[in-house]
Every structure is written in C-alpha cells, then in structure tokens.
C-alpha cells in the first residue's frame, strides 16, 4: 500500500484553487480600496499613499453628500415598504383561502426573474403615462418592485403549519386578528422580517439601472458615482466606491450577527 502524501500536499490543489477564486473576486475590490488612499491624482501604480485627502474630498462634496442622504432615505423607506407589503402578502397567501392563490404567488415572485433594465423601462413608461415626475419617490417605487418579491419569498418560506397552529392558539385565547399579527406572527417571524429588510437595504443601496432611469435632479449615490466616472478615473471615485462597499459589508455583518447568530441559540 502506497504511503499517502502528506496532508499539506494533498490539500494543496484545493488551496490554490480557493486562493485563485477569492483572488479573482476580491482583488479588484482590494485594488479599489488601496488606491482610494492614493497620494497623487491618478489611481494607478505606483502607490504613493496613504492619504485620506480623497475621502475628505468626497465628504466635502455637497452633491455627493446629497446623493448619500438620498440613497439612505430610499434604501430605508423602500425596504420598509417592501417588508410590510411582502409580509402581508405572505400572511394572506399562507393563512387564508385566496382565490387563484397560485397565480397571485406567481405574479408576486415574477419580478425576480425579470432583468432590472426591463423593469426600469416599464416603470419609466408607466410614470410617463400617468404623469408622475421623476423623483426619489419613483426610485423608491422601483426598488419596492425589485425587493418586494424577495421579501415575500423569504417571509412566505418561514410561515409553516406549526406556526399556523400557534396563531390558532392565540385566537383561541381571545386575541383579535390584529393582536395575533402583532403579538404572535410578527415576533415569531422577526428573523425572517429582519433578514428581508437588510437584504432589501443592500440591494437598494447599490442599485444603479432603475435609479438611473427613473431619476432626474435628485439622484442616489450609484447614479452620482456614475456621472463622476464620466469625467474620468480619479482616486475620489475609489474613495466613494470603498465607502459604498463598506456600508454593504456592514449591513451584511449586522444581518449575520442579529439574525443568524440568534437562530443558532
């Protein structure tokens, strides 16, 4: 029987493969972040930092800060609306006898399969037709369109029969329908609601196509970055890009800490 090669050697191909995959995914991000600390005007090697002046430039750019505020506003508001609507739709379909439930469920989740470009065009045509001016509201509506199916799917998947029985118990003990929802259904579904809210926030936060097409004067951060990129690369774009990335990571971390850690207990 041949001696097995040492452990390290056996795992070497897998390790190289993993290093390549992670490198491929994260190297561009690492480069982006690194050159956001560039000392000179061009974000290409050699690196001559570190310097925080580009971050200072970003945070003193009032247009950039307006876009940042808009982004946060749109992300939070559209996610909240998506979660509430998605939850109510899931509750109705999981708990009530709804006529044509299959069809409704199909229509609710269909936007997940449609490209953002098509959705954006559809929204643009609709907003024009009804005479709705492009604004943060239209961007928010667009983000609800893409995030509601996600929220619905997540919440619906967590509404099992066992929970239906718990809701029956609450009704049996005298709870009115709104009390069942607020005191039993929502608290039990809290992790799912939280997860869908934070996922919606991250999707809305860096969504570009819809925000670009249905906005005019008030824009979100990705749209502002895009218009900045048109005048060429400079470390300021790197800095704002790094910032966007940082917020996304932070959101995912919060989600992980609150929702998934909790579930393990």
């Amino acid at each position, binding site marked *: 029987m041949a001696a097995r090669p040492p452990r390290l050697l056996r795992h070497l191909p897998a390790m190289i493969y993993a290093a390549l995959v992670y490198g491929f995914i994260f190297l561009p991000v690492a480069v982006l972040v690194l050159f956001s600390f560039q000392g000179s005007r061009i974000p290409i090697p050699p690196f001559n930092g570190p310097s925080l002046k580009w971050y200072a430039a970003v945070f003193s750019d009032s247009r950039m800060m307006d876009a940042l505020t808009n982004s946060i506003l749109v992300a939070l508001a559209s996610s909240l609306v998506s979660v509430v609507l998605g939850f109510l739709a899931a509750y109705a379909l999981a708990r009530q006898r709804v006529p044509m439930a299959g069809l409704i469920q199909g229509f609710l989740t269909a936007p997940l399969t449609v490209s953002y470009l098509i959705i954006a065009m559809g929204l643009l045509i609709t907003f024009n037709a009804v005479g709705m001016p492009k604004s943060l509201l239209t961007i928010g509506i667009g983000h609800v369109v893409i995030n509601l199916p996600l929220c619905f799917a997540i919440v619906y998947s967590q509404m099992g029969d*066992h929970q239906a*029985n*718990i809701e*029956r*118990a*609450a*009704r*049996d*003990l*005298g*709870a*009115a329908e709104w*009390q069942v929802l607020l*005191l*039993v259904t929502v*608290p*039990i579904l*809290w992790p799912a609601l939280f997860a869908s809210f934070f996922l919606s926030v991250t999707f809305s936060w860096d969504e570009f196509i819809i925000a670009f097409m249905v906005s005019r004067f008030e824009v979100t951060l990705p749209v502002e970055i895009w218009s900045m990129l048109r005048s060429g690369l400079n470390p300021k774009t790197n800095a704002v890009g790094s910032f966007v990335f940082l917020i996304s990571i932070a959101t995912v971390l919060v989600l992980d800490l609150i929702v998934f850690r909790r579930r393990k207990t």
Partner: protein
Amino acid sequence: MSTGGMTTGGMTKEGMSAAAVELDRVTKRFDETLALDAITLAIEEGSFVVLLGPSGSGKTTLLNILGGFLEPTNGRVLIKGADVTNVAPAKRPTTTVFQDYALFPHMTIAGNVGFGLAMQGVAKPERRLRVETALEMVGLAHTSARKVHQLSGGQKQRIALARALVVEPAVLLLDEPLGALDLKLRCQMQEELKAIQKRVGTTFVHVTHDQDEAMAIADTIVVMNEGRIEDLGAPERIYLRPRTRFAAGFMGDSNFIAGRVAEAAGGRVTVDTALGRFAVEGAAEVGQAVALSIRPEHVQAVEARGAARPLGIARVLESGFFGTHHQCTAKLDEAEQPFKVRLPQKESIAPGADLALFVDPADMVLLTG
C-alpha cells in the same frame, strides 16, 4: 345506533341536566366526504368526556367545531345554552390544548400562561397572581421566567394545560394532547389530567384514538366511527355491554360469533350459532342476523366455572406473553374466525396444543347493529 337525544349522563331527563355543551344535528361536509353525520349530543357540566375513535372517525372535526375553528355545514352548537355555531374562537368560552402544544416560542412561560388573561384585559397584578396559581396547579411554578424551548415535552404539555385553564373556560378542549409523550409519561399525565379536572370542575372534552387512555380518564366515552356516534356511556358499560360491533371491537379485543335469532321473549334472546344455541340478554326479532361478542378474558379455557358452557376443543395457533397474562389465538373447527383467549400469567401454552373452551352466556353481548 340512533343519534337522537343522547346525554353523557346516561339517562336523559329533559330539562334537568345542566348541559355544558349541546350539539344539535351537527353535520360537517368536506367537499364530497361527510365528516360528521347529524351528531346530536349533550355534554353534562363538569364531566370528563372522551371522544374516542380511529382516524377519520370525525372526532377531531367535532372538537374543531366545538372550538370554533370549523363551522358546521348544518346544525347548531350550544355552550351553556347560548348558540355559538357561528361565533369565532376568540369569542367562545372554550380553550384548547393542542396536540403540538402550540406554545408561543418568543414568550416566557409566564407570558404564555398570561396571554389569555392579557387578551381579556385583566390588570397586571391580578394576572401575575392567577398565572402563578395556574403554574402551581401543574407543578411548574419555578419555570415562569424560562423560555419555551428550555422545557421538556411533558412540561410543555402542562404549560399548555395551564395556559388554557387560567382563563377559566366553560369547556376545555384537548386535542390528542398526550400523543407525543412516551408511554410512562403518558400514564402519569393521564392521572394528572384526571386529578386536575376533578379539582377545577371544568368540563373537559378530550379527543384520543387510544382506548386505554379513554378508559383511564373518562367519565363518559363517546365512541365515534365514520362521522357517527357508535356508543356513548361510562367506560365500564361500554367495555362490558357495547352497543355496536364497532364499539365492541374498538374498545379492547373481542370475539364475534355470527348467529340468527331463534326465540325472543321478555328481554331474553336465544341465538343459534355454529357453536351451539345461546340464550343471552337483549332484544331482537326472530330470524334476525345478529352477532354475539365475547371478550378474550371471558373465554374460559381447560375447565369451566359457574354456568359456563363448552364451546368445543380448539387448536392453539399462536401464543404470546403480555406480562399480566398470556394471550393466544385458537381455532375451533366449527367457527370461521380463530378465538382470542386470555390465559393466566403462569399458564403458557404452545402452538399446536388442544384447548377446551367454555363460555358463560352471561358474558356474551348481543349485537344487532
């Protein structure tokens, strides 16, 4: 058997029994299937009633109609004289102990037990007191600050009971509450349920498919099959004098001997069977096809006692030891079905052996249905 005018108290005295629950020709249809077929039943105040039947017998449907989770297709439901047929569960004086407990996982034990009181708007200090009393009743006062997932199955069961009883319902409904527990714990909980019911005096309606459980806890057993009531009465009466063949077969083991009525007079019936002629109590028409039911423990083997008559010599097919007794199946040449016979603990018998069987006609039950 007729479903008209039955009371769990046994005798019906119109207007005298204080009925906690009255069902008036309650019918439930699910699409094509008839789950309940015009059930009429009165449940006496303060009694422990067990709805017993196999799955699909309609017992759970009946419980759900009592709790308000289902509406009957036809008929009326009265609780303490008030028509609640179309009243929502929240507005009914009933509470339910669910099979899977259905405790609120996000609340503490005290929060669970106090939920119903909070819904009734009971003020906090009083609520705390009543929750404490309810938890003491089930012996779990020390768990009030814990979360549901920290409890064992038996403890969850007790909390579910405390949660349902603390609101002082007119009727407590129990939906196979002991089904998920192991045998030992189940027996212990049966005793406890019975004791708690006696203490609080609330009317309990308990659903189970376990006849031993039914006999252990019930004041009155309602045997159900295919959406109808087969038999209703005290456990002893149903076991010893079942009214239908189904009730005889479902409540414990029974041997059935087919026969035809030869004579009938003065509350006694003579039945001709392949095993001979037997005179038993009951009423039937001459020429009617009937069955005689005899419990395995009433079949006497080897030697006859009292008024027992010989059935013949049977050949033992199988034999098994059940702790308190041996049970064997033995085939008589004249009988179609092998007989189930119970032998004393220390009397084992091998398959293939011959066994003389005797039976006292007084132990036989005439079944016409």
